[in-house]
């Protein structure tokens, strides 16, 4: 499942980062396969997604978030 389809407030695990130009940047932020995360919020109107990975909170654009495969 893509992160963009993940439900708000639920916990999940990142399984894969799709090979893309943003992949390296995401990984530098600790968004790595195997990391657990919580979706804190999704803005309406296809806006950004706010997630927490460890103690780190990151706001992602939809296209960045769609490169993250989760379960």
């Amino acid at each position, binding site marked *: 499942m893509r992160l963009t389809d993940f439900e708000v407030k639920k916990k999940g695990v990142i399984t894969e980062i799709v090979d893309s130009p943003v992949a390296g*940047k995401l990984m*530098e932020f*600790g968004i790595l396969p195997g990391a657990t995360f919580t979706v*804190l919020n999704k803005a309406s109107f296809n806006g950004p997604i706010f997630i927490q990975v460890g*103690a*780190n909170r990151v706001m992602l*654009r939809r296209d960045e978030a769609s490169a993250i495969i989760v379960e």
Partner: protein
Amino acid sequence: MALVGNPNVGKTSLFNKLCGLNQKTGNYPGVTIDKKRGNFTHENIPFELLDLPGINSLYPNSKDEELVVNYLLNEQGDELPDLILVVVSALNIKRNLYLLDQLRDLDLPVVLAINMCDLAEKRGIKIDEKLLREEFGVEVVKVSARSDQGLKELKDLLLKAHSVNEREPGYIEADNRDLLHQFSKIIHCKNEYRSFLQLTQDLEINQKEEFSKLKKEFIESNKIEVRKWKINESILRYKLIGNIIKKSVVTDKSAADDFTTKADKLLLHPVFGYVFFLLILFSIFQSVFWLAAFPMDMIDAGFSALSGFVADALPSGYFSDLITQGLIPGIGGVVIFVPQIAILFLMFPYWKRADTCPYCLSD
């Protein structure tokens, strides 16, 4: 010495405290966009400190990040700092240590300052700095640029001579180490992480055609997957940092339910978030009008009185009308908005200090 750290960790605040200066700070990333120099003396030893823009990693993503990376990787080395003062925030130490881990591999003397310790205490975050010192092999000190905690200890640490203990590269898989070693030899680079960074990205400092050709040939003949190297670096570093954090950082969860977490629940709510946003904007608007009403009345009265006075003083005619009905009311019509604009601008710093900018990934 150079101040290096992630954006918004308090580098400039610390710089100001150390040098007694007043450079611009703000609670959002990207406040500092240029190098700034400052001086201070401690125990009669003069120090020169360089405040730099925040960087997320040694892979720059913007012009100001590029400035820092180019500075740290400059080949000549005569401009290199004698010491890097790495600033991290105690509130987000795991991600901040990623940059420390990268800088550590450049073989420059490093001192680590863990900032925002005042807030960390409030949020129940406990950090074992002795363990961090052992694990990373650098001097560590806890500070707060807000409450002045630890500033004396930090200055004392800076006085000491700092040697570099080189360490084994942990950012590359064992199988690829030979290749990196070869590449370092080809480009005559003593530090292997420096050559790793030059191999895995195109930096401004080596735009020379000669270099690009050499690099391209090396990558192609050895079938190096540059992107994989870079991704593996992240994985390897986070694995190391994760293990260190497990041992050295404890968060008391009951204390962690702090104001920001609670405020975020309301302010980032899909419906109420927008309601709050509009409410706040509306109240700013209202208060600007309300606060500005009095000075605006004064200005209005002042200009009317002035044109009345001039009309009485001048003989009536075209010239008098030009002044009293044209010039004075014309200028008054502009000046009357000054209070509103001034109040709006005076409010900006407070507006920015409040947590209005959640951390965004890009830019």
